[in-house]
């Protein structure tokens, strides 16, 4: 039974209709439940970090607080601004939600399991370009925010929408580039294939030694993982990158004019996309539904049956915790800092890393001497360049007199350098008039 756990592309598309429907409903319900629990989780965790209880009244541990808030939101008045573009205003939140939920359809929740006699993968569907489907969903999800901002017909939402479009385009470039490294290593774009590719550690041979490398791409492709996670934070509009809804500058950004269920839909899409992005990060970099390393060594069955869903959810919750942690810790970036970070830091690092990685992969089959030359020459050049890089010598600081002499004509007059300010006569008078304090006589008479 432990054989053939990994679904291949051929395993998809042969389920009966009720099974497909069941999987879709499951993925959808997962998104909604994750939102309900995610809001609660975030408020509790942020509350803990800020040394306050957080929601704890409705239900056990305040678990039903989000549900109550959601119900309350549904009964609020739905305001349509007079200047709004009615059709676009109506559709914008739905676009956001649809795109956020659709992305869940290509996320593998687990291996092949048997459901009512059908041997089927725990994943709605998979295509040869599944990761591109994810990218497409996230890039279409921007439309909801941008159109919502535009259609509201007022200034703050418009600014929020503009920011969000610029932000998401910038960070999607960094995100796409960091996935390139995963494609190169896994050799496939299907999500189930990428999970399968992280199953076993590869053997790295460095200087004749065979070192077992871990299978997770988070370790193997660490720069890609870090950049990918940072750009997912940017892509989901979460703090510290929540500039489209920066409440200190833009009220609530693109959703300022929204109320009632439409506002709830925007909130839903934000949390669903946070969970989706965590699930995607888990799939691409953290081994997907596979059990973390020490578990499999003493429990062979950890990766079979329904158990993998547990590992998957645990990883997703851990990543969501990181999202919340970031929000509780980091202040919001300024807009220009944010853009500079995306284009001038993440992007160049990513490009250099891809270049290095493809170089390493192309010399994989060479003999030891060739490898040594291929790695040694660029490393030597880099070393020499860093050693002999012309350092900008700080100019010797001019003395005070030089600074004073160098001042241009017409500057304010300076007092003389050796000016001795005489003590104020009032001070002298105050000291003279002060009554001696009555101090009890100590062992030595002088205090």
């Amino acid at each position, binding site marked *: 039974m432990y054989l053939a756990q990994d679904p291949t*592309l*051929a395993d*998809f*598309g042969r389920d009966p209709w009720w099974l497909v429907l069941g999987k879709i409903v499951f993925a959808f319900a997962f998104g909604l439940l994750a939102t309900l629990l995610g809001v609660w989780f975030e408020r509790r965790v942020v509350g803990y970090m800020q040394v306050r209880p957080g929601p704890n009244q409705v239900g056990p541990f305040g678990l039903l607080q989000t549900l109550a808030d959601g119900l309350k939101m549904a009964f609020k008045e739905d305001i349509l601004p007079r200047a709004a*573009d009615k059709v*676009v205003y109506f559709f914008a939140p739905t676009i956001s939600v649809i795109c956020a939920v659709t992305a869940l359809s290509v996320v593998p929740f687990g291996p092949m399991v048997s459901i009512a006699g059908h041997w089927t993968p725990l994943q709605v569907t998979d*295509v*040869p*370009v599944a990761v*591109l*489907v994810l*990218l*497409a969903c996230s*890039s*279409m999800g*921007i*439309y909801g925010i*941008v*159109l919502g*901002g*535009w259609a509201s*017909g007022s200034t703050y939402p*418009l600014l929020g*929408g*503009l920011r969000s*479009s*610029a932000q*998401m*385009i910038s960070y*999607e470039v960094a995100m*796409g580039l960091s996935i390139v490294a995963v494609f190169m290593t896994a050799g496939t*774009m299907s999500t189930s294939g990428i999970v399968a590719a992280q199953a076993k550690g590869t053997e790295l041979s460095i200087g004749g030694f065979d070192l077992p490398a871990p299978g997770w791409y988070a370790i193997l492709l660490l720069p890609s993982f870090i950049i990918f996670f940072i750009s997912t934070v940017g892509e989901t509009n979460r703090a510290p990158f929540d500039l489209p809804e920066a409440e200190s500058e833009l009220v609530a950004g693109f959703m300022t004019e929204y109320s009632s269920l439409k506002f709830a839909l925007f909130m839903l899409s934000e949390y669903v996309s946070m969970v989706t992005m965590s699930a995607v990060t888990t799939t691409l970099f953290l081994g997907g539904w596979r059990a973390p390393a020490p578990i499999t060594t003493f429990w062979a069955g950890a990766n079979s049956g329904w158990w993998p869903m547990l590992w998957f959810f645990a990883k997703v919750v851990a990543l969501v915790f990181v999202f919340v942690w970031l929000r509780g810790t980091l202040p919001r970036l300024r807009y220009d800092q944010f853009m500079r970070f995306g284009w001038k830091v993440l992007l160049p690092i990513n490009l250099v890393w891809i270049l290095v990685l493809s170089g390493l992969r192309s010399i994989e089959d060479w003999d030891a001497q060739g490898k040594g030359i291929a790695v040694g020459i660029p490393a030597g050049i880099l070393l020499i360049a860093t050693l002999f890089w012309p350092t900008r010598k700080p100019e010797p600081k001019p003395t005070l007199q030089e600074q004073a002499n160098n001042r*241009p004509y*017409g*500057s304010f007059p300076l007092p003389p350098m050796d000016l001795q300010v005489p003590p104020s006569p009032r001070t002298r008078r105050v000291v003279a008039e002060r009554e001696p304090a009555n101090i009890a006589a100590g062992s030595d008479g002088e205090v």
Partner: protein
Amino acid sequence: MTTQTVLAAAGGVSGGEQVTFWILAPLALIGAIGMVAARNAVHSALWLVLTMLCLGVFYVLQAGPFIGMVQIIVYTGAIMMLFLFVLMLVGRDASDSLIETLRGQRTAAVVLGLGFAGLVGGGLYRALGDTTAVGLEQANAEGNVQGIARLLFTKYVFAFELTSALLITAAVGAMVLAHVERRKEDKMDQIATMRSRFAPGNYPGPKPGPGVFATSSSVATPARLPDGRLTERSTPEILPVREMTDRETSLKGTDK
């Protein structure tokens, strides 16, 4: 490989493919027509997004999943988003004027457009109507993505690199044209700023606010200087200076 891909590779058209086509083809057409007909530029862009999405699905249907997804990510996700970005900066009420400058222009355009579409469609149908598709299976033998990659990086590598060089040149050129870099000499330090501020001919104080000592409180009405002259500097440059007529400034007779 999905069933549809296999079917398409075999040259057949499955029922699902037909249904999808007949649902999405009208939508794509409606999007194209709506894009031309919409008065609001943002609505126009949205109709175009609809057409592009339908095209993406068509590519996927015709055994080209990679190009379909790239169509959606690049064209719909990035390029149309940049369009929207610019359109929003222009302003949400910027609508096309519908005044015909040339008489009968619209009718002529519709007739000619329909005729051209008919000619192209008819020609294509006559030429390709009973052609059977071959070679899809060989092209997608190792998978669609791998097939495209093999062609791009072997046979068409030169064209591919040239295209990317062209695009980079265009991007750098646009940046060079748009980027205004102030020369070092042009940067004024604090002392130079002060000098120019107190130089003869420049009024060192803050500008008079619009409407101050003026005959009206409109921002378009210039302020008066202490000597009674009007100052142009108090009004925004894009606003025309408007002096009130005698009739407007005279008493309306409402205050007894």
